[in-house]
Structures are given as C-alpha cells and as structure tokens.
C-alpha cells in the first residue's frame, strides 16, 4: 500500500465531518392547507361525560390537620352568623434589658416601659374586606394550656379538664383596640397600657385574647409582636430602646367546627378536608363529530389532548368559605377502601409551568363558576398501563402535605356530580400520492 493511498484514505475519513454539517439542515416549510397530503389534517373532538358514567365516590373526610397546625391565626365575630374565633397569645416581657451605649454593654433590671403596643400584620386576602373591623386585645382571665385549649376548654391535658368560664377564653380587662382599615395598611396597631405590659413577666400566667369587635367580621393574622419602648434606668442620657417581643404562645380557638357537607366534594380548610373518588377512564369516545354516524373509538385509538375533571363550586359551610384562592391538588390513591386512612400516592394533575417553576395544582378562586382539574398525563399513563380505573384524592393544599402546608382557613366545596372532559385527536395517516 503506498503512502499516497494512505493519505487518500485519511482524506476519506474527513468526509464524516462533512456529514456532521449535514445535521444542520433546514427542512423547507410550506404554508397552507392545499399542501397537506390527503388525510393528514388532524380532527380534534371533545366529549364531556356525566358523573354517572365514570365516577365512584369513596368518601369525604377531614381532621388531617387542626387549627394548631394552621400557619396563621384567625379571629372572627359571628362571621356569617355562626363563626367565632379568638387568637390567644402569651408574651414574656424581659425582666432585664441589655443594651450598648458608648461602647459599653450594660444590663438594667430597673428599666421603665414608656409605651407598648401590639403590632398585628393582617393577611388582607384571607380577611373579610369592606367591613370596618376593630381588633381588641383582652387580658386572659383564666389559666389555660396552649396545647389543649379549645373554644370551650381552657385545659384538657388528660387528668385535668377545665372549661373556660367564658367560652372563647375567659376575658379580663380590655388592654387596647385598633382599627383595621385595609385601604390604609395591612398592619393594625393596638396600644397597650404600659402597666399591663409590665405585668407580662416570664413567670406570669397571663395571656392576651385577640378578638374583633364588630359582628360579621373575620381576620386572618399573619404575625403579631409586642413592641415596647424602654427607658433604661442607668443610661447616660435620655435614651429609649425599642424592643420587639415575640409571642411564646400563639394559637386560635374557634367555634363551631366545620361540618362536612353531605353530597358534595370538599377540599382544604382548617381541618384539611379531602375527597376520595374513583374514575373509570375506559370510556367509548365518538369516532367523528356529531351528527355523523360512526363507530366509537377507545382511548388507545386517539391522542389525548386534555382529560380533565370539571368541578362546579358550591357554597362552603357557613363561616368557612375560603376568602383567598385555594390550591387544589389531586393525588393517586391505591387503597381507597381504607377510607380516611387511605395513604396518598403521587400528584396526579398535569404539571403547569409558571415562570421557571413547575407546579401541579389547580387554583379555585372564590367566585369561580367552574374548576378544571387536568389529568391528561395520568390518563395517558393509564392507557399504556394495566388499568383505566384509577382512584384519587382531592386536597386543598399543596405539598408538603401536613403541618404548616399552604392551605386556607376556609374550605372549597364542589358539586358531587363532576363531569369528565375529553379533548382528543383522531389518529391520522397521510394518503400516499
């Protein structure tokens, strides 16, 4: 073999590099219906099935969470004629003040309180709007257990069972009040008598009840601090130091408990309601647009563009309507027979891309007349899997489900006869020329 042949063969090896360039081809693109081969324009159809055709209800449950695990606190006064809720908080005003002045750190146990106020941050979306609301702070006039206290019971710790002498927490003196005007600010300032503040010592058993003065109101409170202006006794000159005291206990009690409405779907709320149900996706679908007669097709015969559950919102139980949007999630359930104890599988709703994030929930906004829960991918997987009968749980909270999950105080409620929507495209094949 000559060296010339070797060089020639090496050159031949360069041709695959040219082939790589071929991968940047731009295929010519025509526009217009006349250029489609015969039979290649897709046909998309839609059918909406009634619940009787596909639905298997498996129960509505709640109690997976409680008011203690709700991330905010709620106060209400005869809201919608039924709901009362009070926040109970406890603060420990420090008995010594440590501060720095002129490069020297000083400790003072004889400081004085010049002013005190509760600074309350309100979740405006989670609160009733358009109604004048005055937030009142009362001293708690009875010892309570922050873990077990309820609307009617101050202490319920096994051996000890002590009812409140006044349901909703036994009120003592009114410490102060402040107006919530949403148009002005989301912050309510409640001035507190300095002597009362001084009494909130670490070893004291006193607390504060937050309530609304006007009937028909409901506020959701995100955060509360006791803000104190302190004057040290040993300062070099007239010095005031502002201190924020966080509550050592902060919970709310309410009455009545939300009732599970019969004959409807429920999701979310303070007690984390959920609805278990089954769907039989194995449905015959029209093979052509009505009214043309044609044989039905199965899910395996079509491309599914959208499969979704259509929910019709119903009024929530009185006092427990969701004032802010509810994030609805649907989870697979493999053992629906376990009822309330049926474990959740995985999220089933189609992923939605919002910005850079991918979410898997649908949002029900109060006032909506229809909520659509897209289950397209779940159905597509079922078509290629073993069974088209799937069980689900509808929840009103987003992952992680459990303590402090993002959920609303109010519950979303829907008609128990949801509809199942299929949007699908028939398989097509171009006719050979």
């Amino acid at each position, binding site marked *: 073999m000559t060296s010339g042949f070797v060089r020639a063969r090496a050159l031949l090896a360069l041709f695959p590099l040219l082939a790589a360039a071929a991968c940047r081809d*731009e295929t010519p693109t025509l526009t217009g219906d006349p250029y489609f081969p015969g039979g290649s324009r897709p046909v*998309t159809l839609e059918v909406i099935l009634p619940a009787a055709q596909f639905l298997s209800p498996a129960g509505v449950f709640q109690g997976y969470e409680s008011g203690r695990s709700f991330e905010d606190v709620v106060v209400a006064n005869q809201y919608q004629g039924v709901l009362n809720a009070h926040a109970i908080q406890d603060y420990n005003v420090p008995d010594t003040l440590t501060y720095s002045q002129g490069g020297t750190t000083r400790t003072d146990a004889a400081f004085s309180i010049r002013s005190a106020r509760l600074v309350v941050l309100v979740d405006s979306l989670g609160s009733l709007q358009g109604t004048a609301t005055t937030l009142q702070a009362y001293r708690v006039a009875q010892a309570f257990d922050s873990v077990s206290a309820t609307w009617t019971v101050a202490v319920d710790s096994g051996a000890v069972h002590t009812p409140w002498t006044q349901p909703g927490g036994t009120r003592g003196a009114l410490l102060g009040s402040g107006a919530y005007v949403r148009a002005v600010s989301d912050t309510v300032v409640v001035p507190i008598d300095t002597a009362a503040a001084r009494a909130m010592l670490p070893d004291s058993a006193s607390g504060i009840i937050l309530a609304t003065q006007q009937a028909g109101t409901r506020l959701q409170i995100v955060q509360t601090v006791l803000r104190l202006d302190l004057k040290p006794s040993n300062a070099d000159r007239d010095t005031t130091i502002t201190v924020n005291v966080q509550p050592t206990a902060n919970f709310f009690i309410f009455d009545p408990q939300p009732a599970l409405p019969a004959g409807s779907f429920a999701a979310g709320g303070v007690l984390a309601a959920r609805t278990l149900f089954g769907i039989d996706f194995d449905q015959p679908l029209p093979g052509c647009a009505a009214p043309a007669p044609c044989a039905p097709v199965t899910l395996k015969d079509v491309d599914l563009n959208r499969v979704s559950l259509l929910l019709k919102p119903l009024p929530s139980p009185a006092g427990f309507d969701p004032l802010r949007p509810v994030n609805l999630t649907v989870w697979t359930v493999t053992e629906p027979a376990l009822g309330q104890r049926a474990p959740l599988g995985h999220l089933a709703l189609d992923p939605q891309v919002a910005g850079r994030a991918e979410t898997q929930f649908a949002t029900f906004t109060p006032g909506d007349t229809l909520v659509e829960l897209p289950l397209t991918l779940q159905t597509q997987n079922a078509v290629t899997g073993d069974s088209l009968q799937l069980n689900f749980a509808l929840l009103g909270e987003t992952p992680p489900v459990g303590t402090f999950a993002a959920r609303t105080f109010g519950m979303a409620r829907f008609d128990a006869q949801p509809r199942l929507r299929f949007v*699908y495209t028939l398989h097509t094949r171009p006719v050979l020329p």
Partner: protein
Amino acid sequence: MIRAVVRASAAAAALLALAAPAGAQSVLASRGLGYPLEPLDARARGLGGITTGLAEPTPSLINPASAAGIPVAAFVVAFQPDVYNATGNGVDASGTTARFPILLGVFPVSQRLAVQVGYGSYLDQHWQVQQADSITLSNGRVAVNDRFVSSGGIARLQGGLSYRVTPRLAVGASADVFTGAANDSIIREIGGLQAALSAVTYAYSGVQGGAGVRWQPGTAFSASAALHGGGHVRARADDDSLGASAKEYASPLRADVGASARLNERTILAAGASWTGWSTLDDELVSAGGARDAASVTAGVEYTGFSFARKAVPLRLGARYAQLPFRWSGTGTAFPNERAVSAGLGWSLGGRAAQLDASAERGWRGGGGAGIDEPYWRFSFSLQVLGR
C-alpha cells in the same frame, strides 16, 4: 489491496449512516414522489451533470458499463451541500442541506470483468407544511397549529457487473434494490393542551434492472448509453391499523446517453441527455398534480492544461437543462424545469491514488406558469480512492 478496499468500504458504511438525516434539496421534494436526485460525483456535476459518456473507466451508478477496464479497486464518495430559496404560491422558504448522493465501490475481478456495489440517492422526500387554524371547544375558540413533516426518501442499493468485450466495447448490467423510508409525522398543537402526534413510516422496497454499454472507437471519442427500469417501488406502512397501508409504483424507464470527445491533448468536450418515463405514474399521481416524462440535456468541457503546485488541475465548465417530473401546483399549471450552469476542478493526491473533485452549480427551478421560483446553489465534493 483488497483489505484496503474493505476498510474504505467500512468508512463508506459509516458515511451511509451519517447521510441519513440529510434534508431536502428543494421544496419540490413535497411534490409527487419527491425531488429526483442523481447519483453523480463532483466531476460529473462540474461538467453540467453529465450522467454517462466519459471515456476513462469510471465508477458509475448510472451506467454499469462505465467501470469496465478499471485496473484497480476504486471507491468513490460524494458530498453535496445545497442552499436554496423558494418563493411561490404558499411558500417562502429557504434552506440548506447536505447529503451523500453516491457511495460506490468497484472491484476488478479480471482485466475484463469488474463488479460494483453502491448506494445512491433516488427521490428526496424531506419537507414539511404547517397551517395555523382554530377549533371550537366547550370553552370557546382555541388556536391550533397543524404540521406535517416528511423525512426521508427513496434510495437504491445497486450491484453491477461490467465486462470489456473488446478494447472498444464494454457492456454492463445492474440490479437496483430500492430502499429507504419516509417518516411522516402529523402534529397538532392546541393552545394550552397536549399536542397530538400521529406518525407512520413508509418503508420502500422494490427492484429494477439496468444495462449499459460503452463504445470507444478510438482514443479521442467515447459514447455510452444506459437503460434502467422494469421494476417497481413499493411503499408499505409500518402500521396498518388505519386501513390501506401499501402502494406500488412502476419504476419509470430511464435512458441515458452521453459522449465525450478529446478536442486536443488538454481539452475534453462532453455532452449527454437523459429521459425518464415518469408519465407512467401520471394516473397514480393525479391527485398530486400528475407526472410527465422528464428529459434533460447537459454539456461540459474539461481543460487539463492548468497546473498548480506541479500538479495538473483539471478545470470544468458545464450547463444543464432538465424537466422536472412533478407539478408544483395542481393540474392545469405548467411543470417546473431546472436550469443550471456549473464549474469545477480536480486535484489528484498521492501519486494519483486518489482524486478530489469539487464543483459549484448555480441553478434555477421553476419557470413560467409553474408557480414556483427556486434559485439554488449546489456544491459537490467527491473523493475517488484507488487501491493502488
């Protein structure tokens, strides 16, 4: 030598695989059975696209007699990038593409007999069409975008024999096996919903025969002719769930004639013509606009008096006029034609162990009444390696 050719063949196989994703050379790939491609190397392209008629033994998929008398094994591969810009009814498309129109090996068995095995392009079916539309769903009008994508085409795998009957006369025969596939996808994108995708692959099969002759009455003149046809191309879908899934087309008869004359020691004049009887498919393709017989004429001149770096560099000029077999628009409109001028050069390597050729072709497709105007540039590079 055989081992070297085997290695070259292996490289060719790799090229074959890489050639698969090549795109279309013309929007006319969407018409009829596709855009016809000729398995020519860069030398032939530089001479206007002459298909047969050159004097010296040359590997060719068009004329199996062309290789008769080749002294050593040879392998030829061509690489062909294109740039085109089409305007017409419903189209304003530009694109680039690249492909390997010919991969061919020739092996002399004796001084008279040679065998050849090659792979060549035949019909290009890379193209796509889209259309924005809207449909009515329960929540109102929804925008949709439909797209049909065809990817692939028909190629032919050829085996052939050439035999030098006398020093002046050679004959050849070949058998083509049609191969390749068109991968058709239909996509419907619906605003906010999952897209729908239907896909089918039409695999092509079939055979046709070929015969050729080369006559060289003297050293200054050579004439050749070749004939292909007599078979069929069968398209079969990989899925028959939607009814009829196969169709058979007669492979059209194709005749090529060409001749070359040495005008002086340094100049060769070549000319040729071809004719393909596509009209036999006119009835089959009536819904796609029909088909006509397509003829072409080419002429070129090669000058070998120029040298560079102490090596002869043949320079070539050529011109071509061809009829295209499938209409762009429907029946009643004119069939498109193709006109081109070309130039090329060659460069021998390794003591003539290899020849690298290149050509550039400027052409226009369409014509009055055809409804399409598609100017293009087509470049060809080919390498012929001899097993010396």
